């Protein structure tokens, strides 16, 4: 779920003044200024102030911050355990006691204005389907966006990531291609490896030529996209195992 008008929730430590905005000057007091108590959009410390606020909130409510991954909070209470992950204004909850989570959500709703309170379906571009015994994660929507961006929506799909026996080298040919476009596609495919780890090898190989990409490299990179186009609905399936 996410918090509305996030940055307006942050409490400021610093003494900070802003001018009175046009359109709501107080008559006779035009010389006065406004002392900010909470963050406004555009302030350098707005994200930080928000994080401070929610961090304090979690700790006050019995959560412990993970030492190695600060946005992860864990709360243990007897047999019960609750996990919360924070991504700026996005929050996810899980744990063994559904009632406890529900209760904490209700309390949190009183503290902050929130939306999307149901099952997690979408988080950081990941599409999540929670089944009875498994959880499926994919990035279909993201792939569509990337295909559109690189005008490959109706390309011919292929079934392999690289042509067998492909040889790529730094000076593969003389035709240079637009390096920023090349890097941008690399970046997109890298993000895709989050749910498509099998792209890792070929994206890794093509990444080596980011500095001065040639036509051969670009072709190899586009081939990955054509593979993705044909396997758009693939993702990661998390299941249960008995020998855990």
């Amino acid at each position, binding site marked *: 779920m996410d918090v509305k008008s996030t940055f307006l929730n942050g409490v400021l430590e610093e003494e900070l003044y802003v001018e009175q905005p046009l359109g709501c000057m107080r008559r006779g007091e035009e010389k006065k200024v406004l002392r*900010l108590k909470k963050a406004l959009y555009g302030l350098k410390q707005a994200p930080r102030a928000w994080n401070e606020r929610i961090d304090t909130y979690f700790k006050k409510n019995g959560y412990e911050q993970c030492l190695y991954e600060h946005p992860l909070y864990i709360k243990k209470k007897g047999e019960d355990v609750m996990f919360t992950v924070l991504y700026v204004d996005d929050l996810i909850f899980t744990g063994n006691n559904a009632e406890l989570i529900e209760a904490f959500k209700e309390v949190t709703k009183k503290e902050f204005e929130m939306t999307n309170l149901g099952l997690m379906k979408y988080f950081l571009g990941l599409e999540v389907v929670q089944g009875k*015994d498994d959880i499926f994660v994919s990035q279909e929507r993201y792939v569509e966006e990337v295909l559109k961006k690189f005008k490959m929506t109706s390309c011919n799909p292929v079934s392999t990531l690289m042509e067998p026996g492909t040889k790529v080298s730094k000076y593969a040919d003389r035709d240079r291609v637009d390096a920023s476009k090349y890097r941008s596609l690399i970046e997109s495919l890298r993000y895709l490896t989050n749910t498509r780890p099998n792209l890792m090898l070929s994206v890794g190989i093509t990444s080596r030529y980011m500095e001065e990409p040639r036509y051969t490299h670009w072709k190899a990179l586009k081939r990955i996209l054509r593979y993705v186009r044909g396997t758009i609905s693939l993702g990661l399936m998390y299941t249960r195992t008995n020998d855990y």
Partner: protein
Amino acid sequence: MRDHETSDEEDEPLQARARSLQDIYNSTNEVHVVCFLANSEDLSFEEAVQEEKWQRAMNEEIRAIERNNMWELTDLSRGAQPIGVKWVYKKKTNAEGEVERYKARLVVKGYKQKEGIDYDKVFTPVTRMETIRLVISLAAQHRWTIL
């Protein structure tokens, strides 16, 4: 700490002809780019105030700010420098592309802030995708739901 820290950067010697961003900001009076608010309307306050819909939007924003008790009117304390604010106007459209709502947001000209005076800490931790996947696999193993 693995936080994204921008506050404690060492003062690197500037190259002879390079201008720091701060220099550019300081020499610029106009706001050319409001990069965190895409597709905002190119509208000045003077233009917006002529129209009732934008007036209403601005009143709404001011009311929200005051309801949240976000500021108080005071005299400027000695030596302090107030930071400018600016209105950003935005048309919110629905899925069909029709204008649903006129929104005015008051933003601070954050680029005028001076480090150490107006702010010192700006980092905020973000999670790694590996952590998200870990939580998902944990939930799958224990048949927990993720909310």
